[in-house]
């Protein structure tokens, strides 16, 4: 097996991975950097983020307000030391991106413009029309081309971490193009491989979002944290789950039920605000968890609109006018017309909540370090946690930057800490075991299970039992079913025996990742007997700060469900309180 010797390996080349790579290259041009990704960097799912990135820049805003919005929005599950670091670094990172050429939308005076987002007391979302993630990703990718020390390994799938002497010392990866395994020897590894929303059938997530990075760390012994918190974005196109950014509501779009009622006022987010005059932290500018939950209740009450794609509510943007929609929300308009045949300039758009983001992920501290020495993580695959039980819209793009860079700086500290020499033979043995695992999977043709079949059962299980509102019995069903699917996974057949660009093999590996992650989600959810943020239990309807102001930690077991442990939330200045999104109360 070919060995690639590097100083720091990064798995994933989306927003967080690219930001980390650039930070490494800037810190020390002699560092050898291997940037490994299963897709070309610009295909990463950061490109699909629309609305924008939060960072305090305007004089009417303050770090304290961003802190409060984030901690309260996360239902007091965020670690407050991490949030403090995050909000402090946020404006610097967004300005850095501006200096790298990101085409942020502007005010007439040439300063960067901001727009309102849900759950924000003051508008602070930097945006590039409604293609913010796309521009961030391409700006980072193009900037990364300046640095010759960033060596890219595009279309390499990371299969296993190499852990010896109690620390992470590299990984194995499959070169998709050739089907050859490579061993990457590294003094530190940063995982920045995104979330795993594809374990659900109805999601805004692209096909690449299969939890590979999470599973990679999890299998190597690093715990997954708070996996039960899965964010439903309230406004997805009903036929295919395409995201319509929160910016639609930030710019003034409103939500109606079938009777034309602005129903959010019935769920603690009123009073109703006049159309065209959105009020921050009120009605349509409430947080995502509350809006998605309100939809669920409207559906139960029979207040939703029937469409060929299921029950919907209506997002009305007509009053914004064609000019503003084309200037601020051009992609949204294009997506609605192209994929649903409806023009938001002329008619309300049917929408429904859609799985969008995983608050949970690889357990890291404020330095982006996992408990496994030498292993760092950033972005959606990580859980620092700044997002707690519910991420505030537009914090995730900023998180990629802040913690992508932080992971890089921490990795450098680790590399410079005087590490003992690695034992090549021990690493080689592990690499060979990884290679044997992959070739055994590839050579299996007698199994009774199909990849598509198991994937479908997994998705249906998650959709039916692990949705916006959950119950103990449904979650128990889900746990049993996912455990069963993990067993049956051992019995899949691979039909494609070609080494070159074998997507059958890729999908098998991705399914394995998703099943591992799904089990952490379901078991964590079953055991969290309270309602907090995006985790709502019909059998435990209250938040339980007495017992559960804690993070869930799930530890991998190859054949059994994960072992759970709990970790206290870090509180520095804000004690748990009431989440108030009612403009009336102030």
């Amino acid at each position: 097996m070919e060995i690639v010797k590097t100083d720091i390996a990064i798995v994933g080349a989306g927003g967080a991975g690219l930001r980390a790579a650039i930070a490494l290259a800037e810190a020390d041009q002699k560092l050898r950097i291997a940037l490994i990704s299963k897709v070309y960097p610009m295909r990463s799912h950061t490109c699909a983020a629309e609305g924008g990135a939060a960072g305090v820049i305007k004089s009417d805003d303050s770090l304290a307000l961003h802190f409060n919005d984030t901690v309260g929005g996360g239902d007091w599950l965020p670690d407050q030391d991490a949030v403090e670091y995050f909000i402090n670094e946020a404006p610097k990172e967004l300005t850095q991106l501006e200096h790298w050429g990101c085409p942020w939308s502007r005010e007439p005076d040439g300063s960067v413009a901001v727009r309102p987002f849900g759950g924000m007391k003051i508008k602070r979302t930097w945006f590039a029309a409604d293609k913010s993630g796309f521009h961030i990703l391409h700006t980072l990718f193009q900037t990364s081309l300046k640095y010759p020390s960033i060596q890219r390994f595009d279309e390499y799938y990371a299969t296993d971490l190499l852990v010896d002497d109690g620390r992470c010392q590299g990984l194995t990866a499959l070169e998709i193009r050739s089907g050859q395994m490579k061993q990457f020897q590294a003094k530190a590894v940063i995982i920045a491989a995104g979330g795993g929303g594809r374990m659900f059938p109805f999601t805004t997530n692209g096909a690449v979002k299969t939890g590979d990075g999470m599973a990679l760390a999890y299998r190597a012994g690093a715990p997954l944290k708070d996996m039960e918190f899965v964010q439903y974005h309230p406004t997805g196109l009903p036929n295919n789950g395409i995201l319509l950014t929160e910016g639609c509501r930030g710019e003034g779009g409103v939500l109606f039920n079938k009777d034309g009622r602005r129903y959010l006022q019935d769920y603690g987010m009123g009073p109703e605000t006049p159309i065209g005059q959105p009020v921050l932290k009120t009605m349509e500018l409430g947080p995502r968890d509350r809006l998605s939950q309100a939809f669920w209740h409207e559906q139960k009450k029979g207040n939703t609109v029937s469409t060929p794609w299921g029950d919907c509510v209506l997002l009305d943007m007509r009053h914004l006018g064609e000019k503003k929609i084309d200037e601020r929300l051009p992609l949204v308009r294009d997506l609605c017309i192209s994929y649903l045949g409806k023009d938001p300039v002329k008619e309300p758009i049917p929408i429904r909540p859609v799985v969008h983001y995983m608050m949970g992920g690889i357990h890291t501290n404020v330095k982006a370090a996992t408990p496994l020495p030498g292993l760092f993580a950033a972005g959606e695959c990580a859980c620092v946690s700044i997002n707690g039980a519910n991420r505030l819209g537009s914090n995730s793009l900023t998180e990629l930057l802040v913690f992508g860079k932080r992971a890089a700086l921490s990795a450098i500290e680790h590399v410079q800490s005087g590490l003992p020499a690695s034992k090549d033979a021990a690493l080689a043995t592990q690499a060979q075991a990884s290679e044997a695992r992959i070739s055994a999977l590839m050579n299996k043709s007698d199994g009774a299970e199909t990849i598509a079949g198991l994937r479908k059962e997994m998705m249906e299980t998650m959709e039916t039992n692990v949705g916006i509102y959950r119950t103990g019995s449904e979650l128990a069903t889900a746990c049993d079913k996912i455990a069963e699917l993990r067993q049956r996974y051992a019995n899949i057949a691979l039909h494609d025996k070609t080494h070159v660009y074998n997507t059958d093999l890729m999908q098998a590996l991705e399914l394995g990742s998703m099943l591992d992650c799904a089990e952490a989600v379901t078991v964590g959810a079953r055991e969290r007997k309270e309602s907090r943020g995006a985790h709502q239990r019909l059998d435990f309807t209250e938040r339980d700060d007495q017992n559960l102001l804690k993070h869930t930690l799930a530890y991998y077991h190859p054949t059994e469900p994960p072992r759970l442990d709990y970790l206290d939330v870090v509180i520095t200045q804000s004690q748990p309180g009431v989440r108030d999104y009612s403009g009336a109360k102030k």
Partner: protein
Amino acid sequence: MSERQIQLEVLRYNPETDSEPRYQSYSVPCLNEWVVLDALNYVKDNLDPTLSYRWSCHMAVCGSCGMMINGEPKLACKAFIHEYTDQIRVDPLANFPIERDLVTVVEDFIAKLASVKPYLIPKKDQPISAGEFKQTPAELKKFKQYTLCINCMLCYAACPQYGLVPEFLGPAAISMAHRYNQDSRDGGRDERQEVIASEVGVWECSFVGACSEVCPKHVDPAGALQQVKVASTIDWYKEHLMPWVKK
């Protein structure tokens, strides 16, 4: 949501077993609202797990799923079944070597993109603490359109010149250079000009305009190339006829 049986004729090529590409036909029950990518996914999940192609976002922004659909370069996720008859032919993106099935080798494009220095070379240095560079909406508008390129390479598949002269930098790479040249914060035009005004640069373009016709994001690379030609010509005149005028 009506259903229609489509014959999907897909180019197959397995470099380990095939001496040359062949077509394979699949009968796919398609919903009328589907895109060609949905039909390919149906094949992959239900009929033939060995079919290889790239895709991810399914919303025309990641740029992965460019392919030839009935001979035209398209994003498979934005090629609507209802716009086609019951027979649809799918080939890999033209002008690129085939890796396998619908997967092409794209290194050439990536290298060309990198060669034009597609990043901001600031006019002046400014520390982060001094805040953002000011840029008015009008200044932003000057280059905004060229930032919208998703690197899907449809323009390379459509470009007759790229087919004939593989060294040609091509529409997307030159447009990206133009994007930075037009950015009010940038001072790197001279550096990029060495690459894009060269023989394999903008002068290879025969201005057929096919690139702009197929661009799914309306970047108008042909327009960018034309502007680069004009600007390069002015450079030439300044240099040769009016050497006392600085560029």
